[in-house]
């Protein structure tokens, strides 16, 4: 079984739980005392990930770090439909890579603001929040026009991709960093759609959605 080195409150760990849950891939969670214990910086964990970061997976001896990289691996290895990471579609792969990059930017801003406010990290909070708002503004405009074109998801497709999974957690957790999502109604509609993907699961800070209206 896949082992996930995991921290309950990490959005980057959650996105892997989320994709594995949706794909129906069984996995074992190994709780790392990220806070207050800083176990991810302990000598034993640095042997697994010299960067001292979560998440990491161990798939029968294949060890991989970096949430976005792991999403790519999981979709390629465990999604027989090929829809979550369409390997033969050059434009889709380009778009997915672009939004995976955006997910890292969201981590560097919205997630950093949350770490500052919740766990007392020493970051420039105004800069983190302003950066998150700048990204959310782009995201909201993009999603609004996607809706106008009849697309529900980030990468102009009829089916969600790992890009949606990658961006979702720290968008949803932004208010814990003092970044209100009130100005981004198209983002709210998209997050509701993500919550209605079959197999969706929650994490602390993220509630589920009501069931969609029956057609």
């Amino acid at each position, binding site marked *: 079984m896949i082992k996930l080195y995991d921290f309950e409150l990490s959005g980057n760990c959650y996105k892997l739980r989320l994709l594995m849950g949706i794909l129906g891939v069984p996995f074992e969670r190994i709780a790392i005392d990220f806070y207050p214990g800083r176990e991810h910086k302990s000598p034993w964990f640095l042997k697994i990930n010299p960067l001292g970061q979560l998440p990491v997976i161990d798939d029968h001896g294949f060890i991989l770090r970096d949430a976005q990289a792991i999403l790519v691996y999981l979709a390629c290895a465990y999604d027989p439909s090929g829809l979550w990471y369409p390997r033969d579609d050059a434009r889709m792969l380009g778009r997915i890579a672009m939004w995976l990059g955006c997910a890292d930017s969201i981590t560097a801003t919205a997630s950093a603001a949350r770490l500052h406010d919740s766990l007392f990290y020493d970051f420039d909070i105004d800069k983190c929040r302003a950066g998150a708002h700048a990204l959310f*503004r782009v995201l909201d*405009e993009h999603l*609004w*026009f996607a809706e*106008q*074109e009849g697309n529900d998801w980030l990468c102009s497709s009829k089916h969600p991709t790992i890009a949606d999974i990658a961006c979702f957690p720290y968008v949803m957790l932004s208010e814990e960093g003092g970044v209100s*999502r*009130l*100005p*981004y*109604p*198209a983002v*709210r*509609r998209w997050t*509701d759609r993500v919550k209605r993907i079959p197999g969706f699961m929650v994490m602390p800070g993220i*509630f589920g*959605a*009501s*069931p*969609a*209206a029956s057609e």
Partner: protein
Amino acid sequence: MSDAEEAIRLWFPVSRCEEIVPRNVVQTELLGQEAALWRDDLGFVNAWENRCPHRGVRLSIGLNTGSELRCQYHGWWYASITGQCTYIPAHPGQKPPNVIKTKRYGCAEQYGFIWINLGDQPDAAAVPVLQLDSYTTMRSVFTQAPVDLVAQSLIEAHNFEPATSAGNYILETTGPGEKSVLLLQPMNAEQTVIHGLIPSLVRDADRLSVLRQFNGRVSEMRDAIERAAA
């Protein structure tokens, strides 16, 4: 009467109608008051103060089940239209008291927008009248600037003028040619939403490019206004 008291008697657009989608709750703000907007499965749009009468938690983080809004905190149910609490899960055998109901705001659908009114006696006949035979609504643009500054900039720097005698909250382009109408939603002392429409129907084939062009123009104005406000 103060400006604030006067403003409370006015109607303001707060969302495009089509963006109040089924099983969703929209969080918005008008004159410093937060509202939760949600559409029931029969199409009725509710505009409620954004707090549960029980413990004050935002209703916009709750669940729209299609016939009621359920608070995320204790699962209390509030019925569409009346706002009456119909179920308290902690006491499943008891009928909730009549006094437990959400505060409802005046709400109307007009010109493709949801309009709300925060006053105690909302009069739907007072929704501003725009001489429109047809219209196409545009993307609403959030602006980090107070409404007076937004209106002033639009008039002084971007060739807009008041479209009604009711004040500077509804503006239209000056001069000949196709008009654009901007409708301002004063969120609070720092933020304004610029809603927009053009007074005609757009052919399906042109719709996306018209929407993009309009959004591009309003976004440029927004950026200029925000630079001025900063």
